[in-house]
């Protein structure tokens, strides 16, 4: 598998480390009940299809990236720098 870093170009997957799917917005900790926080921290969707996930170009430019990958085919539709992401609210 190869990932196209928006800075470095197409690179072998061994240069990257994987964090996981992009989580939803963090619940307001002071107000959220324990079930809501449990859902946020531990429960992960595992869709068959496109997901957005974090990769770190650890052996390259040290950038956090967001890849849009189809879990059925591993085809990557786009990779963007996490620093440029739109923060969802």
């Amino acid at each position, binding site marked *: 598998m190869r990932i196209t870093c928006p*800075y*470095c*170009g197409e*690179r*072998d997957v*061994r*240069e990257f480390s994987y964090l996981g799917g992009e989580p939803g917005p963090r619940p307001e900790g002071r107000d959220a009940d324990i079930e809501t926080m449990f859902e946020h921290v531990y429960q992960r969707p595992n869709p068959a299809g496109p997901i957005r996930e974090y990769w770190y170009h650890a*052996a*390259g*430019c*040290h*950038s956090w990236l967001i890849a849009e990958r189809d879990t059925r085919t591993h085809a990557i539709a786009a990779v963007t*720098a996490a*620093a440029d992401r739109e923060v969802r609210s």
Partner: protein
Amino acid sequence: MAEPRWKPVTAWEGIAAPGLFGRIDGAPGVIIELGGHVGMASVSAPAAALGAHYGLALTEAPRAYKIGDMTLIWTAPAQWLATSDDRSLADRLGAALSGVAAVADQSDARAVVRLSGPKARDVLAKGCLVDLHPRAFGPGQVAMTVFGHINVMLRQIDERPTFEIALFRSMAESFWHWLGAAAGEFGADIRG
């Protein structure tokens, strides 16, 4: 006055020495120049700000730029590695880039090696995750990548081709294990 006991040594001291290495029949396939005492500094500033300072169109992309006696190498977004034969480079840059960039001295922090000769590309191809074919990689281009699990800065300097590799000094011996094994079959002319 007593002779000082401390003597500066390059990162390759006790690891690699000038001479012929590996295959000895025929001309050496690769020339390996062991980097010595150079000036090196990390420069933290966005490409746009640094480019405006130097009047150059710098971009956040893996390339190297020659600016006077200095080579400015992109290593990460808003991160650069500056090298020069001038050992006072970091002091000089710190003053010149005041208000533009954060500068930290990196002289002696890295081991540097240059590869040239007809088999230079073949040696690197044995351990490189980056395509170094001329249609994919050329002079001025830089790759932050790994050789044998060791993080390196790799760049091509000219068409001959000449490649330069810089890595953290403490990894020099491990890197040499890889490089020696990779270059041996072609014969290496190691120059200090």
